[in-house]
């Protein structure tokens, strides 16, 4: 068994892992729909988006790996870390739930990622800026796709409306974490690497509000609960998704096809 790798305390690496891991874990979750989506066209759409996200993760993890003294590659970072060294927000790792939950989470995270990529176009790191240029187009489509579906479900039958409301109650408490800034954010902002998380809150809320207004959905109030995936403290679901993700590399170290 290949030993786990460890991550340096470098805030630049941590900032990049928070982005790359969001794409990696959400991509893995969306991939679970392969063969299970309500219709074949949607099956293909969801897995297309999963592959977009994994492509984004590859770029960002490669960049993060280059900054580690051990010069890790994307596969080492994706497959050989322990749970506490994954820095995605908890929202990304929650179970895929039903189609309404998947669509709502996609809207929440694609809107967040879109705003992030927009700002990363101006990153002081030329490579990160180039990744953002490509990812932004993908995120814009993901956001539109999710918003359209949320509209259909929210405006559909009594059952679909009920499911949207249930998804909202379940997922909304995890949004707060996306906008909490700490020393990692401050260092990134100071270096011009990327924006501080709290700066995304207002634009995110206003884009979400625009979608919700058409559905006559109100945004739930924010309670005291705070998830903490971006600091490496994950929900009980994280271990299972990592087991899925890592099994092959752990069982056949360095295996490739």
């Amino acid at each position, binding site marked *: 068994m290949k030993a786990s790798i460890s991550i340096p305390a470098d805030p630049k690496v941590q900032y990049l892992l928070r982005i790359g891991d969001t794409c990696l874990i959400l991509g893995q979750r969306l991939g679970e729909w392969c063969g299970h989506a309500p*219709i074949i*066209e*949607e099956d*293909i*759409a969801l897995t*297309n988006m999963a592959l977009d996200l994994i492509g984004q993760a590859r770029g960002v993890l490669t960049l993060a790996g280059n900054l580690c003294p051990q010069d890790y590659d994307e596969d080492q970072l994706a497959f050989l870390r322990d749970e506490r060294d994954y820095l995605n927000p908890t929202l990304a790792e929650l179970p895929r739930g039903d189609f309404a939950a998947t669509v709502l989470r996609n809207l929440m995270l694609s809107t967040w990622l879109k705003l992030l990529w927009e700002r990363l176009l101006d990153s002081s790191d030329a490579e990160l800026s180039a990744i953002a240029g490509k990812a932004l187009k993908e995120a814009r489509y993901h956001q*539109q*796709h999710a918003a*359209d579906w949320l509209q*259909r479900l929210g405006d559909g039958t009594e059952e679909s409306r009920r499911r949207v409301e249930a998804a909202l109650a379940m997922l909304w408490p995890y949004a707060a974490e996306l906008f909490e800034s700490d020393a990692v954010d401050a260092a990134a902002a100071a270096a011009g690497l990327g924006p501080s998380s709290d700066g995304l809150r207002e634009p995110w809320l206003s884009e979400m509000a625009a979608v919700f207004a058409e559905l006559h959905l109100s945004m739930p109030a924010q309670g005291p609960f705070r998830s903490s995936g971006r600091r490496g403290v994950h929900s009980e679901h994280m271990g299972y998704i990592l087991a899925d993700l890592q099994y092959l590399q752990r069982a056949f170290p360095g295996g490739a096809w």
Partner: protein
Amino acid sequence: MNATANEWPLWEVFVRTKAGLDHKHCGSLHAADPKMALQMARDVYTRRQEGSSVWVVRSDQIVASDPGDKDMLFDPADDKVYRHPTFYKLPDAVDHM
């Protein structure tokens, strides 16, 4: 109610690979409305860089010839080779014809 009454309508998908070329029919899909049909056409038929533009048309809006009329409509063209412009002597200056 029959089984198809609950299904979304069928759409025909036409994809243009690059500017200047024509849209080519490439398949069909089920979708609830035009917007969904376009998105699904994008997701299903342009995954491998096939497209720069997509058209979707409700299948029931297409007026098609009756397969039973095939003989009447198309067989008479079989023996009209003179309709092909192959009986002209081309000047040497015209290449690739």
